[in-house]
């Protein structure tokens, strides 16, 4: 096969990856705090293969990034549902002393009184320690915009940490709505320009219209790349037939 086939093949495999990412985004359209995930493609240039000296460009996966834009705020009335407006992340315990970050503030109180996600990852305060609520308080808590948790009688029980993550679009997703900060990034600092809303959940920031358009785009580009492959095949076949007649 000639170069054309490989160029269109590289495009087809990149588009398959793109389709997987779009399907993943669509399947998480109702996941609270989910951030859309986008693949990036890069060019691989090669001039050695071309007799005329023209460069040939192939496509390859360059990586993927997190689209950190704010999702919509959905009221739930649940006192343990928290949403962040602004540029910050909740910190969560992710096992082995690791800290992960996430925007899903749909919390529950576990049997030890810790505030955790539904998967059981404890939410952290600004110092990085889990937040433990005394047993008699239950869900009867108020959470201020700065994250301060108070009980009905006004005593302060702790403060939900809000973290600024450097290079947040480069965060590495580990599933369950959690992300770990990118390699080499500075330690996360308490965020200042963000506030917490109690009784709200941040919905997924996946925009259905954009993802559906992407589906169409991907499909048509895929058809084009394969058409190119088919035409290259036709050309080769014709060449073989004609040259065969000449001989």
């Amino acid at each position, binding site marked *: 096969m000639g170069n054309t086939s490989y160029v269109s093949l590289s495009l087809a495999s990149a588009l*398959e*990856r793109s*389709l*997987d990412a*779009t*399907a*993943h985004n*669509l*399947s*998480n*359209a*109702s*996941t609270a705090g*989910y951030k859309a*995930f986008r*693949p990036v493609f890069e060019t691989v240039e090669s001039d050695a293969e071309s007799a005329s000296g023209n460069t040939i460009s192939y496509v390859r*996966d*360059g*990586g*993927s*990034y997190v689209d950190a834009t704010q999702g919509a705020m959905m009221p739930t*009335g*649940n006192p343990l549902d928290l949403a962040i407006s602004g540029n910050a992340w909740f910190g969560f315990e992710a096992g082995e002393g690791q800290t992960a970050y996430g925007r899903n503030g*749909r919390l*529950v*109180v*576990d*049997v*030890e*009184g810790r505030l955790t*996600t*539904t*998967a059981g990852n404890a939410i952290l305060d600004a110092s990085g320690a889990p937040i433990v609520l005394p*047993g*008699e*308080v*239950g*869900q*009867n808590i108020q959470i201020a915009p700065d994250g301060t948790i108070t009980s*009905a009688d006004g005593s302060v029980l702790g403060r939900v940490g809000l973290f600024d993550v450097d*290079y947040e679009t480069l965060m*590495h*997703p*580990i*599933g*369950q*709505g959690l992300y770990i900060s*990118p*390699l080499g990034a500075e330690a996360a600092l308490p965020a200042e320009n963000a506030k917490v809303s109690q009784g709200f959940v941040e919905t997924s920031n996946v925009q*259905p219209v954009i993802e*559906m358009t992407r*589906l*169409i785009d*991907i*499909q048509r580009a895929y*058809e084009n790349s*394969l058409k190119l*492959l*088919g035409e290259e*095949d036709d050309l080769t076949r014709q060449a073989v037939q004609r040259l065969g007649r000449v001989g």
Partner: protein
Amino acid sequence: MKTLGIAATGMLAQQTNVDVIANNIANANTTGFKSGRAAFQDLIYQTMQREGALTSEDGTARPVGTDIGLGVQAAGVVRLNSQGGLLQTENPLHMAIEGRGFFVLNRPDGSQAYTRDGGFQLSSEGQLVSLSGYEVEPAIVVPQNTRNIEINQEGLVMAYIENDPDPVELGQLTLATFLNEAGMKPIGDNLLEATTASGEATEVSPGDPGIGAVRQGYLENSNVNIIQQITDLISAQRAYEMNSKAIETADQMMSTVNQIK
């Protein structure tokens, strides 16, 4: 192409979502029912290229990895433990809890179950029982010839017998609270069970600080917000359709592959 599998997890999640919403709507008029909401989480990511991998001998590293998300999963159904509206019934044996706590019932097998449904009745022996006939704990037995029953906000049950102008104390109702009420297991018949996730029941008295008061002659309505449920239903259906479109696209792309030659 992993799209078929990824979109299937999305459709499965939306099915769970619709099931939970349907159960909420079906129980919109169930006494003491607490509405549930399906919570979702993104599934694990398959790493094709690790971020931080060296791109040159000089130590330049790839800033982003290539991760492929594998879809979504249901992480649980979270019950919204907010107060339901109080419905006046004027039945002296009906009680609603205004605030935190659960009534305690003894099941026939000796174990205990918990409920917010205070629509109680009397058994043939005059004992206070739930609509399923389970005895209320602690036992309250109403004597014959009782004219009227009075239950105060602290759960003290008093009976006026025959022509006696002074009431007789029949007993003190207690409530149960849990550290993690969302971790209790619903078992039908308006009952919940304690689990390891909810922790052990703590016995409390109605009207204690932070504990609900008992309202006689009222029932607690469900806390289902119908408008919210219907809007959730609409978005669940659309999300389901979008996932099916992803499957359709993958299918058509594979069919294109088959037509190359």
